């Protein structure tokens, strides 16, 4: 893996057993992602994009082949090491925001830093900076149930970005948003990508998202059908 390659996937296979049968979700996937890419796994439901995102995010192990994430083989990671990798280097953005409802916006964004055992001053600075990035610092003391969908997803973005991860994995981040909010979020993510050089990988079939991607890895039936770079 070269210095600029942050993710390298080699001959990746993922099978799921269903009773006595098995289902091959990923079939001999080979790809690499460079630092700072703004790319997406694109394909219809069942094409394997979320499964691939899971493995890149060290949430799942491959059946065959390997995924090397920041020089670490996902196959070799134990559960605690995988958690550490996610904690230190990977940010997640979910389709349904998944904010912790009893905590304020500030506390939700602060949570990943608590896991990293950052001191209070560092946490305060990082949280306020992240909230400013997504333009929601005035909502710091609000609870998630007081936010709109777009605002909630902005908080989720701030939570993913606050620890300055090397990689952000976003699974259908605009699926629950209207067009205006979707574009706002995507522009914010694009801006963060260009300013912070964070690598973004989306799993999506949403045309709005696809329009922003600079690289489209097209998946179909668990295989890479096409890999399109847009410069």
């Amino acid at each position: 893996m070269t210095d600029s390659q942050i993710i390298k996937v080699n001959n990746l296979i993922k099978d799921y057993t269903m009773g006595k049968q098995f289902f091959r979700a990923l079939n001999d996937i080979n790809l690499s992602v460079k630092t700072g890419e703004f790319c997406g796994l694109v394909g219809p439901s069942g094409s394997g994009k979320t499964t691939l995102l899971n493995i890149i995010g060290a949430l799942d192990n491959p059946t065959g082949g390997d995924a090397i994430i920041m020089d670490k083989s996902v196959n070799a990671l134990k559960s605690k090491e995988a958690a550490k990798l996610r904690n230190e280097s990977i940010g997640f953005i979910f389709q349904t925001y998944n904010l912790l409802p009893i905590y304020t916006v500030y506390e939700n964004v602060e949570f990943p830093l608590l896991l990293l055992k950052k001191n209070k001053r560092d946490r305060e600075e990082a949280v306020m900076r992240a909230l400013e990035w997504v333009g929601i610092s005035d909502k710091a003391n609000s609870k998630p149930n007081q936010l709109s969908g777009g605002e909630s997803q902005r908080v989720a973005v701030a939570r993913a970005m606050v620890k300055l991860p090397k990689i952000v994995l976003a699974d259908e981040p605009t699926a629950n948003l209207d067009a205006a909010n979707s574009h706002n979020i995507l522009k914010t993510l694009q801006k963060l990508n260009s300013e912070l050089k964070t690598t973004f990988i989306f799993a999506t079939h949403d045309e709005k998202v696809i329009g922003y991607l600079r690289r489209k890895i097209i998946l179909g039936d668990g295989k890479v059908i096409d890999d399109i770079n847009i410069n």
Partner: protein
Amino acid sequence: MIKFLIKGLLRDHHRSLFPILIVSFGVLLTTVLYSFINGELNDLIDSNARFDTGHLKIMTRAYNTMASQMPNDLALTEVEKLILSLNIRYPDYDWTARIKFVGLLDVPDENGETKAQNPIFGLAVNLFGKNSKEGERLNLAKSIVRGHVPEKPREILISEEFAKRMNTVIGHPITLLSTSSGGAIAVQNFIVCGTVKFGAAVMDRGAMIADLSDLQYTLEMPNGASEILGFNKKNYYDPDETKIIKTNFNSLFSNAGNQYSPLMLTLEDQNELGEYLQYITVLTLVIIGIFLAAMSVVLLNTGLMSGIRRYGEIGVRLALGQSKDQIYKSLLYESALIGFIGSVTGTALGLAVSLYLQEFGIDITETLRNTSIMMSNIIKARISIASFYIGFIPGLLATLIGTALSGIQIFKRQTASLFKEFET
């Protein structure tokens, strides 16, 4: 992180307030139940000891075989000498002689004719002895309903209930008809100086208290007594110590071949109290055990419900990089805090209720109207050292075990399914 978890506990009432209420309630009930049973048990021991069995009792072997008939012809003799010996050998116990007897009390009218007559159970105790604690032991001064405690020979107390039934007037003479130790009819006039409420139904139905020397004279038992009772001077029944004393005494003084030789019994050897106490102890453990098991199940269920409610939160925490171990530990810390607060609250409330029941009790006079068991009409709780932890420790453990068991689900969770779960 701890501050973060505490904030969560304070804000999410389902996570903190409700489990704390459940734990508090369970611990409160356990503490009160234990204190109540403890109070009953101690009252039973105390009542029986004071009125009947002592912590230790000495009778002749022959008297013991027919003790229920109170055969004073088989009573102890040379009692003063024996008590002197007991005081030297077992100085931690207060030794006192008593005569138990039955007879008829005859209440005459102004012409000396019988106005009323009723069978009576009598207890002659050392009322006027210099160092006697019998009056205090039988709580006579506080039990007086009318009149006063005996101040001179031939004055007696009778139970208030009995006095009303017999239309007895305080200060008027009354005649006891009984059987002397030689088998002859014994007749003696007494003055009723007061009436008492013993607080034990079996005594209140019809009992008289007289001085020991009066009955020794009346029943022709000079220096004799039905029994000698021994009371721990610390006013505490120690089963182990009494057994040692009994064995020692019987090996020195008792002779199986001589039916008039003295025989010592412990409280538990008498009136089937030993079995009864064992029964109550086992029953207490069973009740508390069932109670705790039920509380544990409720808390386990609460833990499971909480786990279901927090499924999403735990998923996010896993995705954000918290390990399963860390999440499991944090849940245990939370439950330890909840268990601690709930157990402290429950114990404090339980002790408060127990203290109230210890002071005021519950009056069960009507329930005991026809019983022959020697127990107080007012049942009271009793706070002991165990009252402080009997609910606290299980409350804390049940909360922790409930969470520990329900939290195992975290380890079964597939992180690979998180994205899929979050989409639904």
